[in-house]
């Protein structure tokens, strides 16, 4: 029963390999602006993966994902610029601080569901915004705070290309962790409590603990993403982490596919690149964005991730069978 014995090279592995090679090689053919945009895609992937674990898998709605991103961004930047820590120490610490706040938010959230949870997380978002503006000695207040690029082996990652590769490595690590979580007892407990808290409990799943873990993980991913974001952009202010940012990540996971890592990836790339493509519409770009979003949700309600199996099904000539995808079955 060794893994080697059951491991086969499937078209999925081939596709993943091609994607990885593209992610490494393609940027060489493009300029700095595209490297910056690609890095933004990767950061959004990390942050979306965290939210998808919490909302898509564990079924807990959160409108304050941008707050955890902010905590990671400000925490990492503060630790680097004011405390003088290395970025590589400060970044995981920023993630851990965000996770601690996730834990703190998790406790009141244990007793709440649905709309009530949404309202509490909205309150948390407002509070975090207020704290950022009211603590200018730490955060720079409304005027914002500059952040710097880290150095690696004595070489500052000033170019967008070099920083892109670092972010790519961290993104791959994040994807690996999320893949492992989803295919583990912890991930199954997330899926179980989303489906039925009663059943989950009778299968020995500790409800409170599982929810707190989900909140902490989501906050950690967002915190890491926030720390990278600050360093990539070079400047952070409270407006970056407002309600719209939280809503954008919710849109990303819904458009991509709830409970699916591929969904997080596809959704993050689409929602990062699309606004750039819509720049040609100038003042109408938000209108076009809104129309596309509506059209999308009507046409592909189960997310972009559901498209591939549906096409494959069409090609194989099966007309009447299971709905194209169990959105949580794939585990990838």
């Amino acid at each position, binding site marked *: *029963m060794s*893994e080697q014995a059951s491991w086969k090279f499937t078209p999925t592995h081939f596709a993943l390999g091609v994607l990885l090679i593209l992610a490494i090689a393609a940027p060489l053919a493009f300029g700095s602006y595209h490297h910056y945009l690609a890095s933004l895609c990767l950061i959004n992937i990390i942050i979306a993966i965290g939210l998808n674990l919490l909302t898509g898998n564990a079924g807990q709605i959160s409108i304050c994902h941008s707050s955890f991103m902010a905590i990671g961004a400000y925490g990492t930047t503060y630790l680097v610029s004011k405390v003088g820590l290395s970025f590589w120490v400060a970044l995981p610490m920023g993630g851990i601080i965000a996770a601690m706040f996730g834990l703190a938010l998790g406790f009141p959230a244990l007793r709440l569901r649905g709309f009530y949870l949404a309202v509490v997380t909205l309150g948390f978002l407002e509070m975090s915004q207020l704290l950022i503006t009211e603590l200018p000695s730490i955060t720079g207040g409304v005027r914002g705070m500059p952040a710097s690029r880290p150095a690696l082996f004595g070489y500052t990652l000033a170019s967008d290309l070099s920083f892109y590769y670092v972010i790519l490595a961290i993104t791959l690590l994040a994807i*690996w*962790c999320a*893949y*492992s*979580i989803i*295919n*583990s*007892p*912890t*991930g*199954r*407990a997330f*899926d*179980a409590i989303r*489906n*039925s808290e*009663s*059943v*989950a*409990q*009778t*299968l*020995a*799943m*500790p*409800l409170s603990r599982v929810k707190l*873990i989900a909140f902490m*993980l989501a906050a950690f991913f967002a915190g890491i993403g926030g720390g990278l974001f600050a360093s990539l952009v070079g400047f952070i202010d409270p407006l970056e982490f407002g309600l719209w940012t939280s809503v954008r990540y919710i849109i990303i996971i819904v458009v991509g596919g709830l409970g699916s890592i591929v969904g997080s990836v596809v959704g993050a790339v689409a929602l990062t690149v699309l606004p750039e493509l819509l720049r040609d519409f100038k003042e109408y770009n938000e209108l076009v964005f809104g129309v596309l979003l509506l059209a999308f949700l009507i046409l592909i309600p189960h997310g972009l991730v559901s498209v591939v199996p549906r096409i494959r099904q069409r090609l194989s000539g099966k007309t009447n069978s*299971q*709905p194209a995808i*169990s*959105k*949580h*079955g794939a585990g990838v």
Partner: protein
Amino acid sequence: MSYFTIDNLVVTFGGLRAVANVSLALGKGEIHGLIGPNGAGKTTLINAVSGLIPHQDGRIVIDGQPVHQMLAHKRAEAGIGRTFQHAETFADQTVITNLVAGGFAHRTSTVLQDVLGTPGKFAAERKAFAEADKMLDIFNLRALRDVPTGDLPFGTLKKIDLARALLAQPRILMLDEPTSGMNSSEAQEVITACKRIAGELGVTLLIIEHNMRVIMGLAQMIHVLDHGEKIAQGTPQEVQRDPLVIEAYLGHGSATHA
């Protein structure tokens, strides 16, 4: 002292006593039936024993270990398992994923291992899936392994629910109408499975069942509830002749005509 005892259990909803001082005693590996008209409090009793709803009074003890003050997941860890009247499978997940969730109580990886994806975690994962795959074969579900359960007929869902509960390796298993929605061959399959679960694995079974033929052939002892109270207990033959039971089922005055 029996292996599994429920002692003077009381569950009230507002002013209504849904379960009123009910006591049951089951020996290890025994199969007991729990019957009664609709609204008698059978499912309420199971819900209270598994910890999903609070009880107001009474004791629940497995093999000398009191569990009535534990949270639901702790009771599951202590060996109380159950199935659900409406199967409650995870509709958007495949059959095999549903079953593997049942093995949660016996997970060997820690949360940190789950997050980091260590080799030990993946080894544990393969073991969990191997056990679930074995259960697929026992319940003839192999062909449906990777089908989402939302599309399956109710009788199949009941089997999945039972298989999932068994993977938690319970000491006491409470089954809520295990053969409802099944055709007679499926029902026979479940009856055979129940006998094996009790006989070979030594699991104690408490079965709610509306199909009298099923429960009379399966249980060695039957407890009858009516309006939250236990009105009779005995072997299938004794219970069938009990005038109180006949009255509860057929209405007042029927006993004299029976």
